[in-house]
Every structure is written in structure tokens, then in C-alpha cells.
């Protein structure tokens, strides 16, 4: 199953249709990199035929740029608007993956997005799970889409 390709495709669709920021994707990182140098993250749980956590992780400047583009205004800090915007991206990304999986008879349910922010945290995958991290670049800098998963 080509998770990286699906994630990249859905992310580009979201940015093209609703955020209007130019976006390029980098080579997927399979595992090992826990400290992504990020300050705000939004994550959503997936359950069913696949158990997974899907996240978007951004440095503050990138999170503010993305949130500002979605809201049509400049964001001064990583505030509730920034976290709300990133939560919606996680939600849309998970919804897009759910649809592509459904076409392959893989049923998943979505949880509610959760966002965190801070100056020093790591996001780790449980032992035995698989992980894909895909870097994306916008003008403001790099962010990451991260999928930690195990097949049911």
C-alpha cells in the first residue's frame, strides 16, 4: 500500500483548493527522526482496518503562514486560530485518506483532531508500529505530515 503517495496527493489537493500556497513535497522519511524541530502539531486518530495517528507538524513560522493563508489574515502568534486551522488540515487529510482507502475496501473511522504547541516536544511512534514522515516545503519553510500506523 503506497501511503506516501496517497498522503502527498491529498495534501497537495488541500493546499491547491483551500489554502492557496505553493507546495513541494520531499522524499519520505521512513523512521528514526523523532525531533522534527516543530512547535505546533495537529493529530487525528484513525481506527478500523488500520490503526493510525496522522499528524501535521510545523515550526511556528510555518504554522502561522498556513493558518494565515486559510483565514485570509496575518497571524502574530501560534494561537487558537493557528491550531484550529492545522486541526482542519488534519481532518481533511484524514477524510481524504478514508475515501481513498474505502475505494480499496479498507474501512476506517476518524476521531476528532487534537492540537498541541510548545517549544520542546517529540512525537514518537509506539513500538512495533510503522511510520512515514513526508516533508513539504512552502515559502515560509518546511512542515511534515506524519503517519504512524499498524494494520489490524
Amino acid at each position, binding site marked *: 500500500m503506497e501511503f506516501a503517495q496517497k498522503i502527498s496527493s491529498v495534501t497537495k489537493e488541500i493546499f491547491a*483548493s483551500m489554502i492557496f500556497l505553493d507546495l513541494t513535497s520531499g522524499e519520505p522519511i521512513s523512521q528514526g527522526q523523532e525531533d522534527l524541530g516543530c512547535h505546533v502539531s495537529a493529530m487525528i486518530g484513525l481506527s478500523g482496518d488500520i490503526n493510525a495517528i496522522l499528524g501535521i507538524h510545523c515550526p511556528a513560522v510555518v504554522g502561522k503562514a498556513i493558518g494565515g493563508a*486559510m483565514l485570509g489574515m496575518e497571524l502574530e502568534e501560534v494561537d487558537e486560530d493557528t491550531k484550529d486551522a492545522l486541526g*482542519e488540515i488534519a481532518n481533511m487529510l484524514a*477524510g481524504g485518506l478514508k475515501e481513498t482507502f474505502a475505494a480499496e475496501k479498507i474501512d476506517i473511522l476518524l476521531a476528532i483532531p487534537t492540537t498541541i504547541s510548545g517549544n520542546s516536544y517529540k512525537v514518537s511512534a509506539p513500538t512495533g508500529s510503522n511510520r512515514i514522515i513526508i516533508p513539504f516545503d512552502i515559502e515560509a519553510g518546511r512542515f511534515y505530515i506524519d503517519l504512524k500506523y499498524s494494520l489490524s
Partner: protein
Amino acid sequence: MGKTVLIVDDSNTMRKIVSRALRQAGIDFSEILEAADGQLALDVLGSNEVDVVLSDINMPNMTGLEFLKAKSEDDAIKDIPVVMISTETGADIIDQAKALGAKGAIKKPFTPDLINEILSPLL
């Protein structure tokens, strides 16, 4: 005369995005109202003349499906068309929404052109 639309979504960001997409869709809206859940949407419909509602499905307090059911039981507002706008647009949930009176569904992410295509026949 411009139409009045009500956007129902618990995300402030998404309400702003839908509002922007409505303006870009080229439909003449004179007023765009907002509500953060189904119960607040019922309150808005009870005190405003609204031509069409765009509603999320997954919301706290009162979901989009619960909102449709409550609206269908109120003679004063039951005929106002509702279009669901959500990341969840699987056949099962859309069938439930249509059975409760929804006139269509728009999947997030969406474009202004899609908004126009779905809403124009309802106005």
C-alpha cells in the same frame, strides 16, 4: 435581491474558508450568517430569514444529522434547503443526511466552482 446563507461549522477557520468560497463562487449573497453547532443554527433560523444552509456533520452539542432532524420537525423552518459540507461524505452518512432532508453534499476540500454548482439550483 441578494440571498442569505447560514454556515454551520464548529471550526472558526472553516467558517471563514466557506465564507470566502461563497464570495468567490459568484452567487449574490447579501448576508452570510454563522453558527458553531446545530443548536445555535436552529436559534439563527428562528430569528432570521435564511435562504440556504451549509452545515458540517461532525460537531459538538448537536451534530449536522441531529440538526437536520430537529429542523425537519419545525414547520417554520423545515423547507429551508440544507447542504452538508464535511470531510465525511461516505455513501452511508450522505444517505442518512438525505433521508433527513439534506439537498446535497460537498466534500472538504472544495472549490468555489463546486459551491456554485451545488447551491445555484437551490436559490
